[in-house]
């Protein structure tokens, strides 16, 4: 009896994992790294449930260039307002149930910016 109940629990767990492979465990994606960006350059992540977006950068070419982060819905019809900063590593802690993350060099930058990485994920 106990063995049958255990087996049914395991089957249910396997079915749940198969039905939602991306949500079953924490997911992360390094979607940009080690590039030099001019004003307005940006990159988008894959689509998933998102709970964070990290943007790490440096002013290797001088000045104080700014980088931003936002999250958008899957159809890209709606995005949150950008977060901007001119210091190193920033993190977006807003969440979206199904969408993608973006990192971007501010269009008004007067200097190139070195993007160490943009990384998003959940969990």
């Amino acid at each position, binding site marked *: 009896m106990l063995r049958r109940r255990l087996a049914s629990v395991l089957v249910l767990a396997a079915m749940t994992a198969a039905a939602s492979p991306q949500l079953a465990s924490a997911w992360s994606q390094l979607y940009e790294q080690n590039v030099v960006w001019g004003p307005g350059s940006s990159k988008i992540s894959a689509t998933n449930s998102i709970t964070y977006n990290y943007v790490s950068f440096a002013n290797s070419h001088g000045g104080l260039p700014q980088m931003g982060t936002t999250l958008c819905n899957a159809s890209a019809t709606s995005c949150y307002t*950008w977060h901007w*900063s001119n*210091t190193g590593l920033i993190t977006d802690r807003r969440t979206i149930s199904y969408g993608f993350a973006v990192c971007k060099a501010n269009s008004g930058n007067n200097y190139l910016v070195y993007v160490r990485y943009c990384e998003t994920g959940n969990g």
Partner: protein
Amino acid sequence: MLVAQLARSGSAGRPPSPGVSAGVAALDRLPPATNVPQSVVQFVDFVAPQRGSDPKEALARIRRLRSSLGKTHADLYAFRSGTGAPCFILVGDVGACARSATDGTPGLQWTIGGGMPGNPSNLVAIASDDVAAVGLVIDGAPIPVSLVNNVAFAEYPATGRHAQITIARRDGTSGTVEIQLDPPGSAAAELRFQRSAKRRSR
């Protein structure tokens, strides 16, 4: 001039200390925080090793510098990293962790923007001890900024397009930073194009 132009005025000749290297006394004066939210623990675990800190030691040193900020009543936590830079997080919203205390605008390590549908955007910043006041102008309109425990905070409508932050130092000098905010509508249009281009390339 759109971005990152720093102007000094009224200087007696000595350049201002870079970043927040003049010190952030609240990180020593206030007691370490207890019962830190899980999202703050995750932030510390992620950023501390990148800034020369052990996450457990960083968590033991973390302070809650401000409480119940803005419309979402969010708390702000911060710790001093192994490189000397303050790393801060406004729970559920935004965080920053500079490479060193000398990074960024003299007197202020800041983030600006953000917000969610129904919630305003904000300025969140760590100010060094030599800063007397922080000013914010959005699209020409002055916005009140509070400066408590080395944290500057202000809220403004998420429709803002241009921000000017002013840092007034105790020695009478000041500096300004200009930020092009990019309203969310323009971001969606631009990213729809980028997303369809990505699909076509597959």
